[in-house]
């Protein structure tokens, strides 16, 4: 248990946190800005991974990564027009039920299109191998995952805080009636936000696939961790999503090191503690 071991575990925790951030950010963006609970997010993530794997099989990894977010955004567009738009004004319970059902429908759709067998999506040659950092060999692809997560965080932060469309979104979230009186097309704004959230799920699927496995149930398995992340962090805030991801990632990784037999319960204990002391999470969005 030398320093190298701890650096390795620190990198593992950081990498897992950014992976979780990528997985949960789309969910939290949609919730924070639209107050819409989209439990089908995991299924969209799986759809992204499947699209990436099929495209990559013929045109290489990078084509897969670029196509996946657009494909999932298009799926999001269709879902929004036919389903989500109608559910916008109904209560959270109806939304949860509809998107929960949607998740299973999408899961079976994935099965019908791609079958039950796992698909292959390998790390591209340019990102395979390891690099040495502080005397520790660490897989290059894991650094790539961290980088994609960090870029997503910075970009979203900049867009929301510094651009005009970011200001419009924030206005729409704070008071949508007033925003539309000022000439902002709030409906269209939310439509864009939903598609962006879906695209983020697509990126997450494509980036996570070489690390994990592309199987039909992948969307279902990721739902609980992402929900824990955004509940700990606070529903709907970017700061909450990254904080929640870091807490989850570090607790899970070091839990597995120090108390492997409790690895699966530690995070739930923490979740319970946070819900008792701060029921809205650590950094809830202002609009909530």
């Amino acid at each position, binding site marked *: 248990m030398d320093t190298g071991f701890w650096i390795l575990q620190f990198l593992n*925790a950081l990498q897992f946190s950014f*992976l979780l951030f990528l997985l949960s950010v789309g969910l939290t963006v949609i919730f924070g800005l639209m107050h819409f609970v989209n439990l089908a997010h995991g299924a969209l993530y799986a759809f992204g991974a499947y699209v990436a794997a099929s495209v990559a099989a013929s045109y290489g990894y990078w084509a897969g990564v670029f196509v996946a977010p657009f494909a999932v955004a298009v799926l999001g567009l269709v879902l929004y027009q036919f389903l989500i738009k109608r559910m916008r004004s109904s209560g959270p319970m109806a939304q949860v039920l509809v998107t929960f059902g949607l998740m299973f429908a999408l899961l079976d759709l994935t099965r019908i299109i791609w079958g039950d067998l796992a698909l*292959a999506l390998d790390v591209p040659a340019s990102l395979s191998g390891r690099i040495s950092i502080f005397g520790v*060999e660490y897989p290059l692809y894991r650094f790539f995952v961290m980088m994609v997560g960090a870029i997503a965080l910075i970009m979203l932060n900049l867009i929301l805080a510094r651009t005009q469309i970011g200001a419009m979104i924030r206005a729409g979230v704070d008071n949508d009636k007033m925003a539309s009186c000022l000439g902002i097309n709030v409906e269209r704004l939310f439509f864009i936000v939903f598609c962006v959230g879906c695209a983020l799920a697509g990126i997450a699927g494509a980036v996570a696939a070489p690390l*994990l*496995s592309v199987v039909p*149930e992948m969307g279902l398995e990721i739902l609980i961790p992402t929900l824990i992340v955004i509940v700990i962090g606070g529903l709907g805030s970017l700061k909450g999503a990254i904080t929640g991801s870091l807490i989850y990632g570090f607790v899970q990784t070091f839990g*597995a090191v120090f108390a492997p037999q409790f690895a699966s319960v530690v995070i739930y204990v923490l979740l319970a503690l946070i819900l008792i002391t701060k029921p809205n999470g650590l950094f809830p969005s202002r609009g909530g």
Partner: protein
Amino acid sequence: MKNAGILITIAASLLSASIASADAVKVGVLLPYSGVYAALGKEIDAGFNLGLEEFGKGLDLEIVREDSEADPGKSIAKARKLVLQDKVDVMTGIVSSAVAGALRDFVHGAKVPLMITNAGNNSVTGAKCSPYISRFSFSNGQINRLMGQWVYDQGVRKVFTLAPDYTAGHEMIDSFAATFVAAGGEIVGGEYTPFRKTKDFGPYLATAKASGADAVYSFYAGGEAITFVKQYDSFGLKANMPLFGAGFLTSPLYVNAEGDASIGVKTVLHYVPTIDSAINNSFVAKFQSQHEGRSPSEFAVAGYDAAHALSLAIQQGATDRASIAESISKVSFTGPRGEVTIDPKTNNIVQPLYVYETVKKGDKLTQKVLAQLPNTQDDVNGCSL
């Protein structure tokens, strides 16, 4: 009047049911066609169908399929439906150990023969064995029991073990560890990872690396196996710490999803499609022609051999639940995996095991058989038949 009508209907349906059972042998197939084990369920079903095509020619069989969803509660309901409503003479299937455990008492009580085609929990043919339950797949202990000595013979002295934290994970590792220690080896550490909740094996792999072990022995299956093998390779551990394990780790069913990460992994299994025998070559060719060139897996062979055994039993004159159960317990034949018999002491299968290495031939991953281990028979483990 109305009541009389109903009575007549009931009588008629009872009559027709008894007529049907007098003619055909009704077979209930209970497999997960949906849910997380759907791929395995469909693979076993494909093997079973191929087996019936081949050995069941001219037999009067009626097949009733039910989706277990690999859910114990739903499986019990489906099994009741098969036994009480469809009045099947024999049942086959079962992928999940949890389902096998849940069904055991019902099947035993109803005296319906059940031919298990996957679930490997030791207890089904051990302490909780039943004259009505036979197994055509493997037991968790059986798969790994001879691997302790074999791994030791490769010059490995210190091993770190990794497996998911559920019955199969514990049984597989325990079985290996016992024989590895008996051979003179040392288990320097090991961890059980949260079952189907572990996305990042990084923390465990770092611990394994720091343990000073010569090798890692492991068991994972399905999506977890793919994730584990890929991550093991990405950390570059294979060079200094080779990966051994139960062969589900690099099963032909999902080795392609693992890609080059699986190359060089040495594991043990009761069947690989590259076993070189006339019977196996013909089985592989037939399976490939039905599945776009894909080779059969250990799951398909369990279904195939179950169909073979059932056909033999019926050809030998078994017609009802009791005679089928009795006949199945004595079955013995040579199949794709070699000579197999049902052990009369436990009703578990006795079969050879194959140590294989995943290698790349051209651009395809395939299994190179390194050793054939002798037929292994489980201890009675508290079973008295």
